[in-house]
C-alpha cells in the first residue's frame, strides 16, 4: 500500500467551485486517469482520499493538497502523467511525492494558510493605520454565519500576519482542524467591501511549524 501526497494549483473561474463540488470533480478525474485508488470496505465503499482544508469559494490557490491511497504500486512519474491528462482547465498538478510510513495525514498537518489579496486602489496610509489598530486589539469579534446557525467568534488569535504594500495584502491565517479565518473576514474587519476585492489567492498551506506538509 502506498500513499501519495499531491499538491495542485487551481486558477481562474474554476475556483468558484465549492469545496464539495471539487471533491466530487476529483473522483471523476481519478477515474478518467485510471488511478487505482484504494476503496474503503463496508456498506458504502468510498475512495481513500484525504483533502486539505476547504478553500473559500472564489479564492484561487497555488498549493492545495490531498493524500491518496493506491491499491497497487505506481511510479510517481506515471501517476503524475496520467493524472495531468485528465485534469479540467484551471487545475494543474504541482508536485507529487510518496508519504512515508509514520507521517501524519494532510488533514492533521495543515495549520495555517498564506494569502495574497488585491483590492481596488486605496489610500495606503489609511489602510496601514487600520491594520495597526486591528492587530492591536485583543479581541476581534466577528459574526460567522452558516446554515447551522450564526455565532460570534474571535478572529484575533487566527491572524498571524497581516501586511499591506499599497496594492496587495499579505496574510497568514489560521486554517485546518483547529479552525479557519478567511481573508474575506479580515478584509471586512478592515472596512474593505467585497466589491472592492480584485483577486484572492491562497499562496501556501503550511504546518504549525511553518514547513510545507
Amino acid at each position: 500500500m502506498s500513499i501519495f501526497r499531491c499538491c495542485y494549483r487551481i486558477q481562474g473561474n474554476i475556483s468558484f467551485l465549492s469545496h464539495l463540488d471539487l471533491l466530487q470533480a476529483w473522483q471523476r478525474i481519478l477515474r478518467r486517469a485510471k488511478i487505482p485508488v484504494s476503496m474503503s470496505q463496508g456498506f458504502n465503499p468510498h475512495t481513500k482520499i484525504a483533502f486539505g482544508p476547504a478553500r473559500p469559494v472564489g479564492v484561487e490557490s497555488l498549493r492545495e493538497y490531498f493524500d491518496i491511497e493506491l491499491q497497487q504500486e505506481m511510479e510517481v512519474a506515471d501517476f503524475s502523467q496520467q493524472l495531468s491528462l485528465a485534469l479540467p482547465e484551471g487545475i494543474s498538478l504541482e508536485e507529487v511525492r510518496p508519504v512515508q510510513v509514520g507521517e501524519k495525514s494532510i488533514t492533521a498537518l495543515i495549520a495555517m494558510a498564506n494569502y495574497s489579496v488585491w483590492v481596488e486602489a486605496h489610500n495606503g496610509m489609511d489602510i496601514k493605520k487600520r491594520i495597526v489598530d486591528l492587530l492591536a486589539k485583543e479581541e476581534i469579534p466577528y459574526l460567522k454565519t452558516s446554515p447551522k446557525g450564526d455565532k460570534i467568534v474571535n478572529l484575533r488569535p487566527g491572524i498571524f500576519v497581516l501586511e499591506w504594500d499599497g496594492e496587495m495584502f499579505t496574510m497568514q491565517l489560521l486554517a485546518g482542524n483547529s479552525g479557519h479565518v478567511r481573508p474575506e473576514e479580515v478584509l471586512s474587519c478592515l472596512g474593505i467591501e467585497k466589491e472592492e476585492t480584485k483577486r484572492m489567492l491562497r499562496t501556501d498551506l503550511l504546518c504549525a511549524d511553518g514547513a510545507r506538509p
Partner: protein
Amino acid sequence: MVVLRERITRELLPFVTRPGQYIGGEYNQIVKDWDSTQLKMAFLFPDTYEIGMSFVGMRILYHVVNAQPDFLLERSFAPLVDMEARMREKGIPLFTWESGRAVKDFDVVGFTLQYEMSYSNILNMLDLAGIPLLAKDRVSGPLVVAGGPGAFNPEPVADFFDLFMLGEGEELLPELLAAYEKSKQAGESKHDFLVKAAQIPGVYVPSLYQVTYGEDGVIKEILPLENGPAVVYKRVLPDMDLAMYPDKELVPLTQVVHDRLVLEVMRGCTRGCRFCQAGIIYRPVREKSVDKLIQQADALLESSGYEEMGLMSLSTADYSCVNELISELLDRYSEEGVGVSLPSLRVDAFSVDLAEKVQKVRKSGLTFAPEAGTQRMRNVINKGVTEEHVLTATKAAFSQGWSQIKLYFMIGLPTETKEDLDGIIDLAVKVLQNGKEIAREKGIRKPLKVSVSVSSFVPKSHTPFQWFGQNTLAELKEKQHYLKEQAKQYKNLSLNYHQSEVSFLEAAFSRGDRRLGQVLLKAWEMGCKFDGWTEHFKYQTWIDAFAACGYTPEFFAYREMDKDEVLPWQHLSCGVSQKWLWHEWQKALAEDLTADCRHNPCSGCGVCQKLGVDNDLKGAGR
C-alpha cells in the same frame, strides 16, 4: 469581448449563490476559435444549468454542431433570480458559458421547448441578452430559433421566433445552419432567408402563415403565404445506429439533476398511451444495436470518468435487447464500480427483475405508473396494464427487498367517474396489503410505505386526447380533496398531488394558439418567470395577464374541440394522421384497446408510410 468575461468573474461570480453553475469549463467542453469560425450558434436552455445539463438533446446537438468545422455552438442557461438581479444592476448581458461572450453576438440563438411553463423564461432570457423579443422587431441581430417537443405546437410562442425545427435535429440543424451561412454571405435579408428556409423539410416559419379567427374565437383558417408548405412534417432518422452521438460527454463540475452518463438506447414508443405526446411525436421505434451501445458506452466512460450510466428512452424495459445489454454492461464495468440505472420502470415483474439486476447498493424505492385506478379507465387511455400486472410487479418488488413503492396516477382523464377515483385508492391499498403479507411471511421489519402521486391530466396537442376539454380547476380540486380524504384512512399510505393551477395553464398553452403570445408577453412584463418552480409561480398574475389581453385560459383549456375544428397545430405534423388520432379518440370513448405495432400488425397511425421509416427493432426479444 474578453472584457465581458472578466466582468463576469469580478462583478458577478463572487456575489451570487452557487457561482460554480455559471463557470462552464467542464471536462470535454468545446471552445472553438471565434474569429476563424464562420457561423456561431448559442444554445439557450430556458431553465437553470442544473436542469439543463441533464438534457440529452442539448448534449447531442452540442456534439453535432461543433463537429462541423465551420460552426460552433456554445451554451447558456437561465440565471437564478439573484444572478439575474446582479446582471441587470451591473448592465451585464446574458452570456455563454464557454467563452463568456454576449449571446447577442452569435448568429443564431436556439432554444429548446421542453415544457410550457418554461416559456416565460425564454422571454426573460432574450431580454437579458438584449435581443428584441418580437420576431417582427428584429431586422438585424441573431436569428432566433427553437426545437424540441414544444415545436409541434409552438403557436403560443410563434411571435417570438423566426423559425422552428420539427423532429430530430441531428441532420436538420446543420442543414439549417449551412443555409443560413450561405444566405448571410449572399447578403440576403432575413425575410428572404426565411422564405427559402421554409422549403427545408422540418422547418416551420410562423410568419409565413396567416391565421384568421371566427366570431366564436375559434380558428377559421391557417393560410400559408409565399409558398410555405401547407403542412410541415417533422424530420426523423431511420437508423439510430447511424445517428451521430457524442463520444465525449461534458462532465459537469457542480451538482446537476441527473449527474450520470446517458446512453440513449432507442427513440420512440409505440405502446400508444392516448394521453402521451412523446408516444406520438417520436414514432416509430428505432433501436440501437447492442454492439453500437457498448461501443458508445466504452468511449463515453473512458472520456468522462462517470460512475453511473443511465439507459435512456421512453420505456427502456421495452428495448428488445435489454437483457443482453444490461448483462453485457454489468460484465464489462461492474468491476470498475460503474453502475447502470434505469430511468423508468414498466409495470411488470420483468422490470422488477431488471431493477434488481442493476441495483448496486441499498434498496430504497421503486416507482410504477399504472396511471389510472380501474381497468375501464386504463382501457380508455390504452395503458396496456392490468391490476394483475400491478400486483405481481409490486409483490415482486416487496419480495426482493424494496420497502417503498411509489405509484403514479392521473386524475381528470376523459370519462372519469367516482369509481375510477376509488379505484386508485383500492389499488394502492391492495399493493400495501400484499406488501404487509410478504413482510410478515419473510419476517421483514422495515416499515413499508406506499406513496401515491396524483397529477392532473393535461390534454396535449398531437394526441388522441387533444380534443378533450380539461376538467375545471374546481373539479380537479374536488377530486384531489376526495382522494386525500380516502387515503387518510390508511396507515402507511401517503398521497400527494401537484398544484392544479399549473396544470390548468399548461393545458391552455399546450392547446393554445398564436393569440397567447400577447398573454405571455404581458405575464412576463408583470414579472412571471420560472413558472415551473412552485416558489416562483404566480397564478394570479397569469390570470391578470390573460384578462389584460382580453382572453381567458378557460377558452383554451376547457373547450371540447369539434372534429372539424381547425386545430392551432393542424399544419404541423409528426407524420401521425389527424384521422388516426380521431379514430383513437373514438376508440378511447368506446373503451377499446389498440395494440403495440411493434409486436402486432400496424394500426395505421401513418408515420411510417408518410415519412418512409419503419419500426426498427434490433433484437428478436419479443
